[in-house]
């Protein structure tokens, strides 16, 4: 077994073990409307943190691309944005389940719920932009510039807006002693560590797809037959 396969197997075992520990080791959290279901935070919060990490990487690689014009940086920026979107969807879905149990409704237009919807729309536009421009260097340049414009909006939506408007979400619970209970904090960060390893795995695999697609595009197109002109069609 190679080191890479071993690492992937260990990552799978690790997140499976943390999932089981969250069921068996974590006590129900008193003070919540549904103490049993409060354990969901250990799955929801790491997804939300990785959303930020991915969009931060997107901005960093976009900046790198504009400085170096290296196509690999553009590929990495795109891969990071795709992962950011995946984790944003997972954070929203798990958060909705939490809201359903604790706040009585799956969607409450809470500042954090609203901001993640805006954030997903902002990055959906990034993918639309990439899909709309065919020329490779122009696409890379425009999407990198857009990603750098989206970055301050992302920081505002994740870190500032939920703190200046009254929210159902608590703030500063992860790093302070007054926040989450130590058992919750250990489980949450353990799950985060496992998800981070999966994140690296997905990022590398996504980059491999990007590189293979570039190689396929470089292959000479053997089908040089002209497209048939339909009757009455003006060319």
């Amino acid at each position: 077994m190679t080191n890479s396969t071993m690492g992937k197997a260990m990552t799978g075992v690790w997140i499976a073990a943390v999932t089981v520990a969250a069921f068996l080791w974590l006590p129900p959290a008193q003070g919540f409307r549904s103490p049993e279901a409060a354990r969901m935070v250990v799955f929801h919060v790491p997804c939300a943190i990785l959303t930020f990490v991915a969009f931060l990487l997107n901005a960093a690689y976009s900046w790198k691309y504009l400085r170096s014009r290296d196509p690999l940086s553009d590929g990495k920026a795109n891969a990071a944005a795709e992962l950011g979107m995946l984790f944003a969807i997972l954070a929203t879905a798990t958060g909705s389940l939490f809201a359903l149990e604790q706040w009585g409704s799956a969607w409450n237009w809470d500042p954090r719920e609203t901001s993640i919807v805006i954030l997903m729309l902002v990055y959906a536009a990034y993918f639309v932009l990439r899909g709309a421009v065919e020329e490779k260097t122009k696409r890379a340049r425009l999407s990198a510039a857009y990603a750098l414009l989206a970055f301050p909006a992302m920081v505002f939506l994740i870190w500032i807006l939920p703190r200046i408007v009254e929210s159902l979400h608590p703030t500063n619970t992860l790093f302070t002693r007054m926040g989450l209970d130590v058992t919750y904090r250990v489980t949450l960060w353990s799950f985060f560590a496992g998800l981070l390893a999966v994140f690296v795995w997905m990022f590398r695999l996504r980059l491999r797809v990007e590189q293979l697609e570039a190689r396929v595009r470089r292959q000479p197109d053997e089908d040089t037959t002209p497209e048939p002109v339909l009757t009455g069609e003006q060319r």
Partner: protein
Amino acid sequence: MNPLLTYMITPLLVWAGIFGYLFWLDMRVRALEKRLDEEASR
């Protein structure tokens, strides 16, 4: 909904999301590698 059931769905949702995406990426890598191999052997 039963709170325990909702709680059990949450990790399953995360697992389905990440492993579904990994599976999709793996399929794409295999398809592209196969295409490159076929074109190289022509």
